């Protein structure tokens, strides 16, 4: 097939195939109805064309059964569109639990992607075939939108907020990445490539990079550099909450509200600590707004996430472990 006359883009993810099936349904309904209307108009226009100036057509006013029929039937067909569309949408909105996490930061006018293992790419993303990938995305400036037509995936990327998209690549190849939300002068230049590699090839690519540090490890260095560890101690109760295991847990605030400590919560706590204060603590944390970039924030978040998984440092006897397991004595 002449690639220049393609009508459908590559189907390179499972969702792409599902969506294209829905598209066929939509097109079928549209073709049937437009052909029907076009044909009727053409037929009536010819058959009932005016032949003399004295024609007096009989009035056919209205017909309730007809009105009901052409209200109900289209409505039912559209309800199929709605339900099917909603089901594909749910699929698009729910990343599977075993997805690989990749971070994306959009800025005027480039995409910066970060793998957990530490690889950073600009306007490119290498991923292995057959494993779902979850993107956690934010913007440094204006609203962008991460769009890969071949995967049928698109989601806006906003400043001050994390948004998520996911896909499961099913076909190796190189696929367009576009920015799909107008973002200024070089909006049409904010494009790149998603490279889907066979698993073996992907491992080679991972290893071949300039031995980067994992995100969590960079985050740990930053945590120490910014002196977070002075207050957020893990060895004994401090003036600030112990961050071990905090990611994903429920946190109670001074207002009585309970929130989940997700990426957005951690980010806000670093940039605007006074907004949500943990119950039993004072508002003494300084803000780091202006001192950390979006990428720095992602590294810190990854480090804090890793605190849940790290085993407790070898403690001198069980006493220490017991201390950590006790609820903190708040002051």
């Amino acid at each position, binding site marked *: 097939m002449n690639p220049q006359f393609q009508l459908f883009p590559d189907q390179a993810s499972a969702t792409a195939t599902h969506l294209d099936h829905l598209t066929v349904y939509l097109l079928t309904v549209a073709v049937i109805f437009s052909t029907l209307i076009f044909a009727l108009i053409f037929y009536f226009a010819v058959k009932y064309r005016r032949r003399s100036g004295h024609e007096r057509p009989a009035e056919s006013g209205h017909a309730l059964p007809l009105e009901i029929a052409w209200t109900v039937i289209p409505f039912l067909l559209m309800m199929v569109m709605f339900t099917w569309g909603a089901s594909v949408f749910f699929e698009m909105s729910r990343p599977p639990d075993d997805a690989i996490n990749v971070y994306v930061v959009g800025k005027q006018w480039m995409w910066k992607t970060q793998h957990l293992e530490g690889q950073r790419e600009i306007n490119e993303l290498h991923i292995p075939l057959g494993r779902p990938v979850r993107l956690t995305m934010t913007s440094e400036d204006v609203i962008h939108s991460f769009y890969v037509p071949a995967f049928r995936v698109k989601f806006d990327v906003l400043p001050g907020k994390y948004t998520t998209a996911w896909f499961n690549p099913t076909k190796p190849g190189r696929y367009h990445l576009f920015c799909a939300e107008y973002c200024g002068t070089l909006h049409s230049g904010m494009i790149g490539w998603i490279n889907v590699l066979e698993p073996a090839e992907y491992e080679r690519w991972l290893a071949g990079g300039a031995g980067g540090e994992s995100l969590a490890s960079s985050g740990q260095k930053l945590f120490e550099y910014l002196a977070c560890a002075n207050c957020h101690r893990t060895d004994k109760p401090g003036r600030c909450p112990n961050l071990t295991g905090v990611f994903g847990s429920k946190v109670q605030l001074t*207002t009585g509200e309970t929130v989940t400590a997700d990426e957005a919560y951690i980010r806000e706590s670093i940039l605007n600590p*006074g*907004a949500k204060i943990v119950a039993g603590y004072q508002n003494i944390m300084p803000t780091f707004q202006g001192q950390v970039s979006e990428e720095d924030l992602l590294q810190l978040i990854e480090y804090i996430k890793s605190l849940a998984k790290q085993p407790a440092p070898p403690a001198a006897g069980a006493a220490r472990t017991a201390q950590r397991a006790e609820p903190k004595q708040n002051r």
Partner: protein
Amino acid sequence: MANHTLALRHQFDDVEQQKDASTFGMWIFLATEVLFFGGMFCCYTVYRSKFPVAFGHGSNHLDLILGAVSTAILIISSFTMACGVNSAATGAKNALVGFLSLTILFAAAFLVIEMSEWHMLYKEGLMPGFNFTYNEIDPGHVQLFFCMYFAMTGLHASHVTIGIGILATMAVRAWRGAFGPDYYTPIEISGLYWHFVDLVWIFLFPLYYLIARHLQG
């Protein structure tokens, strides 16, 4: 009472239809104003439900006494306006001019209090864009509170100012004998506008001044 000719505009069949149309038109205009302010009330609602604590702190920095006094003044001005409409309906020209003037006076007093409140907030470093130095709890969202405060009270104040202009025009026309019991539609629809402006403030006052009063500033 001064002599005046009642002008029936050519597009209307009779005076009744003309009056009806004018009043209807003003109600539709007020509907547009509801939507206009409504957009901002919507922003307020969204932000307050997201940041109730910050909004509470912001509210505590507003002067409750001045706010209450200006509310009372505006309500009284609505009363004098209603008296004015009544005077027009009964043909009491001097009373009409008097009540219109009183309404204008109260409106002006409202604006003076409002401007002095703004000035005080400026002095305290609570005016975003010009002088915002608050740095206690959650300064970002408190700044948002004040952005909304100035935007909404500013929009309201502009409506009060326009209202003063309208009422002044009406007062001059009334003085020249343009109105009488058989024709006072402009007074009536000016009254509708004025009551609306008052009503907006009656919503603004509690939403900005009376929330979270139990919090410490």
